[in-house]
């Protein structure tokens, strides 16, 4: 019985770590989005450069930014997030995968 109480805590510490990863992803997303949009977009429109027809600030901030986030999320899911059971019964057989 006693060691059963330890396992849920371990799942919680994994969950806490993944919540922090969520915040880091959002922080990175904001920096990328803001940096390209206002870093390249604040000059006057006559000086804009264009990529595939889009103004460069928009292309990097919104289009590339979205693709980068989708790839990052996929990488995080594949390599960082851990699988775990959500129920407390039948814990033993699934603990190995944690």
């Amino acid at each position, binding site marked *: 019985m006693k060691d059963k109480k330890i396992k849920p805590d371990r799942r919680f510490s994994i969950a806490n770590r993944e919540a922090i990863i969520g915040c880091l992803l959002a922080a990175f997303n904001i920096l990328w989005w803001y940096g390209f949009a206002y870093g390249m977009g604040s000059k006057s429109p006559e000086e804009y450069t264009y990529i595939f*027809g889009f103004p460069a600030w*928009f292309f990097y901030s919104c289009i590339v930014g979205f693709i980068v986030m989708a790839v990052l999320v996929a990488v995080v899911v594949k390599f960082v997030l851990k*699988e775990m059971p959500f129920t407390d019964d039948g814990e033993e057989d699934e603990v190995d995968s944690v």
Partner: protein
Amino acid sequence: MNWGVVIPLFIFLVIVFLAGIWSNRKMSGSASFISDYFIGNRELGGLVLAMTMVATYGSASSFLGGPGAAYSIGLGWVLLAMTQVATGYFVLLILGKKFAIVTRRYNAITLIDFLKERYQSKSVVLLSALSIIVFLFSAMAAQWVGGAYLIQTVTGISYTSALFIFTVSVLIYVIIGGFRAVALTDTIQGVVMFTGTLILLIAIVVAGGGVSAIFSDLIAENPNLVTPYGQDGQLSSLYVSSFWILVGVGVVALPQVAVRAMSYRDSKSMHRALIIGTIVVGFIMLNMHLIGVFARPVLPGIEVADRVIPLVALDVLPSWLAGIVLAAPLAAMMSTVDSLLLMVSSSVVKDVYLNYMKPNASHSHVKNVSMGVTAIVGIVAFILAINPPELLIFLNLFAFGGLEAAFIWPIVLGLYWKFANKYGAIASMITGIGAYIGIHFYNEAYGNLFGVHTVTIPVILSLIVFVAVSLLLKQKAYVFPHRKIGA
């Protein structure tokens, strides 16, 4: 009537009905009605979970209002809309596995069940139920109005008949199918939105003579349209950035979104939903708002923002295809309305009626009450939407921001801070809603306080109040139960 457009729309509605009926047959075999009706027995897979989150979140405003704003404001509004990419991964990662484990131990079916167990306070429950019922009911009735306008624009029938069709369609599948039907139809609707926006974007780029040509037309008209600052330079970088709170990270606190974070089957479903959700929400938001900007040179001079998408679709697409594409905003509205409807009736039935009025209700009694309340809420929304009162429009303005200000810290701190207690939660909810209403009026009268969106300051204030009050009236550190309660 334009049959070429109406027939695809009609086929779409029939498919949605069939999904509701199919879910109902699946449900009748299930043991626990209440858990199945309101949360689908926690067995959503990855694709359905991702789609139902995207579809619930992407409402009339993303499909009609948002692109309409992009039409008049330009690329700055697309930049603003892209803050929503975060909703694809943030909600599931923040509430994440801890929420999934804890809500299972609590036997929680609604967001309020979670708050009730965590804070052990009747005031928290009643305050939350009241906010959900008032704010979400208004948000829902406003979508009702949007749905009716869209059907009216496309078919040419009267507003009241359009409203009637919309109400009947939504009520039938929500009442008979519950959450599972909603999640399933959300998936169909999500797929329709995804493909609909893609088709329309391609069509409009072709109609405008390519991306480069469209941008030179825009610059020729007004160079500000291609800057991040809006057509009059009215969007400051600070203001646009504050939308990260309203439509990005704050979405964690929307009850209709949070409830989905307790409905998935296992961690594998959640992982898949993270990837699919991020891609789908980003793709839809980017395309939909770009369509709004690109529509400007293609079809200049549209006065009513909400009509940009329907008019452009009818203009650049053959009518049968326009019918399919216009099923997308209809899908967006229906999928938002159905979740809100279920959310409101679950607050009434589960959080108030079963908690405090009739805790020992029998299985069949609960079933009848759930379906009955869902029907009544829907019909009241219909009656209100026939002639929407000022109050409704007014409350709808508060709906998302108000709910976020009320719920974000009770949920997040309740989950991750052991010293979060009921006094902090109550104080934070009152501060959040109060400050939101106060600042709303201030901003209307004097312009945005500190140049940020209304939601920003209440969210910060309610955090400070939550932490201060929790520490001031400090209780023993909270420990989550180690196993299912009552088991």
